[in-house]
């Protein structure tokens, strides 16, 4: 994307019908470290790569508990993500106070999307610079949604956002059809394997990733380091053989992405 004369205000349309400030906000999501979500019929797993400012600091929290039955993983401006998580918690608590029942996930994402849309239509505001992977369980089953800074939201079987997420998406695209019937353990394993894809070469250690899960009879909680390390240990040996085969498959999508970035006429919001 290049600078142009229609990109100063969020309330200025371009002649081709695009709001550049909103698209720039979506670029901010791509700058954040990766976050991944997948769901089966009964569980939702959210995982992310731990990124720290420097070796001296602790890593940023990118996964938040919204309620026992809803969790959110963010990528982009984590401050915006923190504020939105607080909003989601408040909505969840208020819903329970009024209706004595847990907030359906589909309702929550609509509230979030409407909130994001407001920021795309006020000259004194700016869009939220964070993408949210909202995972939750309600009467209609397990759900995974992605909320955009544009105010759009989509439901997914599995998705990845943030930097180097294309590698994880490629992995998920190959496997997603089986996720619906996956066991809890297989789902966790697939999440960690997807995280490994985004690291592209770096050895996967439990300290590098955060994994959370929620499901039927299982309120939202984080997996501790030992649990994650155990799952990593089960496939680290097999990984050495797989790596050679995957190295060829990854070169192709990377080239396709470079072409798309230079294409100004396709509005990326249509992904």
């Amino acid at each position: 994307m290049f600078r142009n004369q229609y990109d100063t205000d969020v309330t200025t349309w371009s002649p081709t019908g695009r709001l550049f400030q909103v698209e720039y906000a979506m670029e901010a999501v791509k700058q954040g470290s990766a976050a991944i979500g997948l769901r089966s019929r009964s569980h939702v797993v959210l995982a992310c790569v731990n990124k720290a400012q420097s070796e001296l600091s602790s890593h940023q929290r990118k996964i938040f508990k919204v309620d026992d039955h809803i969790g959110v993983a963010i990528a982009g401006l984590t401050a915006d993500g923190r504020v939105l998580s607080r909003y989601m918690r408040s909505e969840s608590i208020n819903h329970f106070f009024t209706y004595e029942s847990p907030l359906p996930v589909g309702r929550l994402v609509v509230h979030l999307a409407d909130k994001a849309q407001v920021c795309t239509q006020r000259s004194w505001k700016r869009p939220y610079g964070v993408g949210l992977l909202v995972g939750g369980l309600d009467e209609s089953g397990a759900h995974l949604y992605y909320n955009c800074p544009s105010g759009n939201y989509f439901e997914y079987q599995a998705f990845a956002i943030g930097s180097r997420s294309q590698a994880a998406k490629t992995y998920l695209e190959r496997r997603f059809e089986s996720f619906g019937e996956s066991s809890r353990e297989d789902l966790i394993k697939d999440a960690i394997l997807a995280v490994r894809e985004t690291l592209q070469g770096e050895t996967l250690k439990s300290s590098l990733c955060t994994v959370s899960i929620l499901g039927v009879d299982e309120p939202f909680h984080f997996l501790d380091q030992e649990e994650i390390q155990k799952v990593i240990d089960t496939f680290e040996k097999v990984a050495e053989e797989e790596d050679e085969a995957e190295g060829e498959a990854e070169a192709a999508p990377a080239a396709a992405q470079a072409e798309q970035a230079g294409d100004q006429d396709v509005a990326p919001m249509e992904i």
Partner: protein
Amino acid sequence: MTKQHANWSPYDNNGGTCVAIAGSDYCVIAADTRMSTGYSILSRDYSKIHKLADKAVLSSSGFQADVKALQKVLKSRHLIYQHQHNKQMSCPAMAQLLSNTLYFKRFFPYYAFNVLGGLDAEGKGCVFTYDAVGSYEKVGYSAQGSGSTLIMPFLDNQLKSPSPLLLPAQDSITPLSEAEAVDLVKTVFASATERDIYTGDKLEIMILKADGIKTELIDLRKD
């Protein structure tokens, strides 16, 4: 010209009695399960005890609609606290929150007579007793509700727990064992049931200890 008084009251008294006793490493919270209005019984099986946090249990008599509303507010506030602090509220913290919540409605009070029981940060039992607008005190034992005037003098006689305001400062913890405290509770409720028409049916006892909560349900006179 005498002042005209309302012929409708927003309040009702659903009766019942609540008691709590604090021990060195436990807390006993008990209440009867009768809910009444006027001279009628609405339910013989209504619990007046509500767990607010792992270490804090609230028992309230009075107007149960207000009690329910109060419980909902406290539950929501506790959820917010857990999100912000990443841990459960301690009993003394919940005690202050309850006081603030009650005083917030100083000019249209919750008609709720509360006894909060639980374990403090050191694992010792604590009981807090309230009036309808939030005045509270940490005590070793307390009774609230329709049978409180029958029970409190007897507890004073048996437990003689001094007020924390007296000098020299003494622990407001009763020197009873858990079994003795439960026995005492059963005794006082049996006596109160005899003379208070609003107390009876069943007695629900919750025993809070560091490793968890146990509940007992005992029959009382149904008349």
